C-alpha cells in the first residue's frame, strides 16, 4: 500500500557528521558490496571499467565548497535515502512496490512488484533512488534491513554496512524517535539539519553541520600559519625515527 502510515513506531535512520567525513568513499564501497549480494537483486554495474564507468549506487559522496569571508573549505557530503516521514516517492508509486514500514519507518521497494516506471525517482527531491539497468526495478538504500535485524551476524555487525565501515565515525545509526538514543543525543547536542526542509518531506536522517573550525575566524587569524607546522622539529622517539631516516 503506497499510502503513508500516519506515524511509525520507531524512526530508524542515519545521522551523518559533516564535520568528520573525509570523503574516503569507504561507506560507498561497503554499501555497494553488501547490497550487491544482500536484499533484492544485485546492484548492476553496466560498465564498471573504462572511460565511461556507470553503475547503481545507493550511497554517493558529493563534495561542496563553502565560502565564508575569504576562506574556503571543502565539505564531503555523503547522501543516501533519508527515509522521509512524508516520503513523496512512496505515494506516487502506482504498483504498491514502494512503501514505508510502520514498525521502524524504513522506506523500501518490493522488487517483485516494481514495474520500473521511474516515477518515484522523479518524486524524490534528493536523488536517492536509482533504476537498476539490468533488473529494471528501482533501487534505494534499505537502511541495511538485512543486517540490522540479522541474527546470523555477530551483534556488532547488526548495523548498516556504511556505518560499520566508516573509518572516521562520521555515520551513526539509531532510532531518532527515542530521545535517549545515541543519535537523538547527537542531534540534540550538535547543530543538526534537515535537507531541503522546503520540500516538506520530513527526512528522518539528520546531518550534523561542520563546526566553526571551518569558518574564517580560526584559519584566517594572523598567528596561525601552516608553514610553522611543517618546520616544527619532532621530539622524543619521533626525533629518533626522523634521524634514522634522514641519516643525520
Amino acid at each position, binding site marked *: *500500500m*503506497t*499510502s*503513508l502510515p500516519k506515524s511509525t513506531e520507531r524512526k530508524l535512520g542515519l545521522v551523518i557528521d*559533516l564535520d568528520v567525513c573525509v570523503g574516503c568513499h569507504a561507506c560507498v564501497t561497503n554499501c555497494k558490496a553488501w547490497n550487491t549480494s544482500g536484499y533484492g537483486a544485485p546492484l548492476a554495474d553496466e*560498465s564498471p571499467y573504462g572511460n*565511461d*564507468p*556507470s553503475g*547503481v*549506487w545507493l550511497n*554517493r*559522496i*558529493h*563534495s*561542496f*565548497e*563553502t*565560502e*565564508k569571508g575569504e576562506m574556503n*573549505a*571543502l*565539505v564531503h557530503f555523503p547522501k543516501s535515502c533519508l527515509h522521509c516521514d512524508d516520503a*513523496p516517492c512512496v*505515494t*506516487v*508509486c*502506482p*504498483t*504498491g512496490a514502494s512503501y514505508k514500514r510502520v514498525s521502524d519507518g524504513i522506506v523500501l521497494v518490493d522488487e517483485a*512488484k*516494481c*514495474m*520500473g*516506471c*521511474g*516515477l518515484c*525517482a*522523479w*518524486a*524524490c*527531491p*534528493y*536523488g536517492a533512488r*536509482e*533504476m537498476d539497468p539490468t533488473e*529494471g*526495478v528501482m533501487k534505494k538504500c534499505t537502511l541495511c534491513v538485512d543486517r540490522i535485524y540479522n541474527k546470523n551476524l555477530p551483534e556488532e555487525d547488526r548495523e548498516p554496512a556504511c556505518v560499520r565501515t566508516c573509518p572516521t565515525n562520521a555515520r551513526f545509526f539509531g532510532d531518532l524517535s527515542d530521545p535517549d538514543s545515541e543519535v537523538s543525543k547527537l542531534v540534540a547536542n550538535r547543530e543538526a*539539519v*534537515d*535537507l*531541503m*526542509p*522546503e*520540500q*516538506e518531506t520530513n527526512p528522518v536522517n539528520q*546531518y550534523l*553541520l*561542520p563546526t566553526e573550525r571551518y*569558518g574564517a575566524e580560526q584559519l584566517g587569524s594572523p598567528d596561525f600559519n601552516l608553514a610553522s607546522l611543517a618546520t616544527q622539529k619532532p621530539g622524543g622517539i619521533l626525533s629518533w625515527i626522523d634521524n634514522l631516516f634522514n641519516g643525520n
Partner: protein
Amino acid sequence: MHPAVSIIVFSTFSGVGFGICFWLGVLGPNANAQTVIIAGFFGLVLAVIGLLSSLFHLRRPARAVRALSQWRSSWLSREGVMAIVTLSCVFLFLVGRFFNLFIDLVTILAVLMSLLSLATVYSTAMIYTQLKAIPAWHTILTPLVYIGFALLSGMAFIFSFMSSLLGDGMLLVNLVLLLGSWGIWFLWVLRSDRIGLGSSNVETATGLGKFGNITPFEPPHLGPNYLTREMGYTLPRSKSRLLRATTLTIGLVIPLLLFCFIFFSSIPWLVEVFKFLYFCSAFAGIFISRWLFFAEARHTTMLYYRKE
C-alpha cells in the same frame, strides 16, 4: 528532465483521443450516427496508442497491470483506472449508437463520457503536477495546459475530418480553444521561467547555508549516472527560445492563418486541404510544446551535482 518520446506520445495522443471523446459526448448524442462512430473509433484508437506508448517507458511492462492497484494514493494509478473506465464508457456509447440501442442510456453515457475524458486528462497531468521536486510542474496551470490542449486537439480533429458534426458556431469555439489553450501555455511558460527551482537551492539542499555561498565541487563519480541522465537534461537557452517560437508558430500562428483561409476560401477541395493542415499543425505544435515541457523542466536533485 529527459524528454522520453514514449511519454510525450503518451500524453499527446491520449490527450487528443480523450479530447475527441469529450467533444463526442457534447455533440454526439443526436448527431449522425455513422460520423459519430467513425470519430469515436479514432478517439479510441488514438487514446489507446497513447496508453500503449506509456508501456514502452516501463522497464517491466509485464507488471503494468499492478499499476491499477494504488488509486488511493497514486495519480499514475488513478490515470490508468480512469483511462480504462473512460474507454469502456466510450465503447458502450459507440455500441449504443451503432445498434441504436438503449437510447435514453446513450444520452447519459454521453455526459459521462465527457466528464470521464476530462477527469482522465486531469489525472495524466497530475502525475507531473504532484512532483514538488520539479517546481515548474507543480502548479494548477499544468492540468489546465493539459486539458486545454486535449480539448483543442480533439476539437481540431473533429473540425478537420468530421466537420459535418459541427454547427456554424463551432468555428468560434475552435478559435476560443486555440487562443485560450495557448494563452494558458504562455502563462505556464512565464511562471516556469520565474519559478526556477522554487525555494530550493544548493544551500538548503546541503543545509550548509550558514557557511555562505555553497558550490558543488566534485560529483560523486566521474561518469554520468541514472540520475544525471534522467534529471540532468539541459536545453541551452538559445535553443529553448527557438523551440518556443517554433511551437507557437506551428501551434498557434499557422492554424490561425489556415483558419482565415478556410473562412474565405470558396474552393471546396482547398478547404479540405486547409482543414487537414489545420489539425496537423495544431497537433505538431502541441507535440513540440510537450517535448519542451520535459526538456526544460529542472529537478532539485541536480543541485547536488552541478551549479544550477
